[in-house]
């Protein structure tokens, strides 16, 4: 199995935080290094200079008055209240003449570092570091001037400790920050992942949580949610269509089955058998017509049907209206056509014909006898042509208007009448193919029969 880091560590944020921590550490190290050199180094230099000055001054005393003068001077210096240095004077052979130490460091000349036993003010013994220089005074003696580095060592140690602590704490903090940030980012990403997984598992009602910050995650979650809304809508629609097809086709198929069973069960007179078969064929034709309509709608949706050419929309409208006029008259409806010629659109003649045919036939079907249907073509604003069918029927309640455009949805009042429930869906699809629109509204009748005004809006050409 592959080794897997914890979730927060497998994030871009974590990798970036880590990089950031490294950069911060390098920067702090440089800064602290500089601080160290400029304090501890400076102190060391200063000490060297003071030792050199002290030695110069003792050498001057030697030149002026020889060894006796040096001894005299050393005694004075050692007894000064602000005494700062340690002194030791020996013969070249190593015999102590005077001084603070029991013996000289073994080095010959130059810089030396050694440890000395010292006495604290409370009387306890301690070991401190000392640094100094040894010089020769003529051939007579060797002189050590040293400095008790105890105090400076303490400062150096403190600074060193501070530098190391700061570096460690800095590194730790930036790592901790990185982990915290990546965990919070990872958690929010994880929420989106969970939502996506739940949706993939089939629960389309899942939504990603949106916080109050309107940050990039909130915006992402919002987009994801509206995408899911749309998806859920589409899936519900197609589920609805599937259910509706099954439902709509089940009844004619079971009727057919019953009729065939009945025909098998007992011998029928020739004319009864013929009648039964005719009815069956009619019903099969209905089923096929429904399938054809579904296929046609799918092709329209997929954009594989519909060839748009410049054509006179009012001419098509008048053709369809005149074709259907006798049916309206037979249904005792007053039928009027009002369309001037030359309303050119980019359109598919067959599709516009079928859409208008559906609208006019609907109007004929739903308008009670004695009513009125008016079909018209108008130039609408902004380069559109409106093809309008208005009737004095019961209309469609506002709340149902969007629904009846869906496949297999039929208005409450239409349920008892024959029809596939695909007519308005086709008009809607035709409008979409033409990049136009299909709107329905009240036709302005009295409240009990507001009528329906259906408008297919096409782009003028």
């Amino acid at each position: 199995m592959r080794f897997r880091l914890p979730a927060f560590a497998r994030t871009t944020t974590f990798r970036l935080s880590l990089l950031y921590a490294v950069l911060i550490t390098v920067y702090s190290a440089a800064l602290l290094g500089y601080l160290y050199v400029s304090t501890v180094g400076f102190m060391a230099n200063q000490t060297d200079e003071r030792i050199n000055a002290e030695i110069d001054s003792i050498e001057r005393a030697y030149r002026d008055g020889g060894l006796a003068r040096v001894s005299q001077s050393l005694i004075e210096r050692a007894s000064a209240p602000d005494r700062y240095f340690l002194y030791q004077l020996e013969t070249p052979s190593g015999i102590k003449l005077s001084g603070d130490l029991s013996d000289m460091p073994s080095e010959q000349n130059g810089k030396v570092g050694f440890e000395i036993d010292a006495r604290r003010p409370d009387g306890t013994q301690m070991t401190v570091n000392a640094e100094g220089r040894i010089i020769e005074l003529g051939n007579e003696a060797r002189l050590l001037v040293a400095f008790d580095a105890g105090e400076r060592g303490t400062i150096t140690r403190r600074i060193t400790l501070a530098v190391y602590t700061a570096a460690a704490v800095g590194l730790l903090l930036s790592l901790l920050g990185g982990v915290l940030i990546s965990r919070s980012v990872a958690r929010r990403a994880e929420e989106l992942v969970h939502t996506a997984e739940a949706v993939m598992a089939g629960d389309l009602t899942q939504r990603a949580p949106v916080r109050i910050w309107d940050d990039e995650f909130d915006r992402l979650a919002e987009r994801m949610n509206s995408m899911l809304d749309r998806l859920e809508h589409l899936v519900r629609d197609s589920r609805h269509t599937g259910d509706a097809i099954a439902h709509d086709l089940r009844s004619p198929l079971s009727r057919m089955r019953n009729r065939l069973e009945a025909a098998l069960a007992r011998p029928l007179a020739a004319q009864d058998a013929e009648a039964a078969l005719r009815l069956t064929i009619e019903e099969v034709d209905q089923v096929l017509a429904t399938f054809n309509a579904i296929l046609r709608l799918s092709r329209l949706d997929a954009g594989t049907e519909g060839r748009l050419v410049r054509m006179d929309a009012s001419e098509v409208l008048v053709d369809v209206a005149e074709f259907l006029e006798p049916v309206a008259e037979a249904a005792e409806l007053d039928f009027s056509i009002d369309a001037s010629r030359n309303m050119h659109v980019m359109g598919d003649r067959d599709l516009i014909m079928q859409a208008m045919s559906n609208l006019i036939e609907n109007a004929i079907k739903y308008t009670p006898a004695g009513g009125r249907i008016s079909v018209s073509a108008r130039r609408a604003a902004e380069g559109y042509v409106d093809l309008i069918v208005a009737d004095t029927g019961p209309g469609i309640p506002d709340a149902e208007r969007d629904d009846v455009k869906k496949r297999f949805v039929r208005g409450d009042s239409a349920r008892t009448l024959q029809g596939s429930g695909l007519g308005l869906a086709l008009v809607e699809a035709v409008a979409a193919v033409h990049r136009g629109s299909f709107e329905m509204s009240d036709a302005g009748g009295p409240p009990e029969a507001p009528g329906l005004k259906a408008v297919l809006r096409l782009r003028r050409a």
Partner: protein
Amino acid sequence: MRVLVIEDDRETAGFIAEVLADAGHEAELVHDGTSGLERAQAGEFDVLVVDRMLPGKDGLSLVREYREGGGASPALFLTALNDVDNRVEGLRAGGDDYLPKPFAPAELVARIETLDRRQSGDMPVTVLKAADLEMDLLARKVTRRGQKVDLQPREFRLLEYLMRNAGQVVTRKMLLEKVWDYHFDPQTNVIDVHVSRLRSKIDKDFDEPLLHTVRGSGYRLEA
């Protein structure tokens, strides 16, 4: 009438042969495009019935090559698809008519018979006659027994189509397509309403009806 049926689905082909035999026609069945073209080019057939989807050579290419080779018999396309593009393609390739599956037997027979009729009467005519009914195509005038009949433009076209196919059954679908250029089925019995209007104009005042309804199929204009 001798009909060449080029259809790869054997059951459909057999069904078509039966339907044609019942109507008194003789059908020969071929099940792929290549041998279909060969048989068609033998020139023994009055009408070709061609499926669009065929093994060997598709229906469109078959008819196109048949026409390029000088073949003149009318061709009817059968297809599972009924959309505008398909119909237009079929007619451009040299087809004379187009029938989507599934089809009613009466529809197929009526279409094949009018196709053959079109073939035999290729002289341009200016006057159509059926019994005592006369149509002058140039003057756009119709008379019956010398008496003028007033017709709307669409009624004129409807009668013209019926007269050109006098003695033949024409289906409602054919009238929809040829007279009104409708390529889908309206939900209502609108064709019947138009025909009965026309009938009231040409038959009402005369004892011998000319425009007959053929049950289960369509209409026929006949003395």
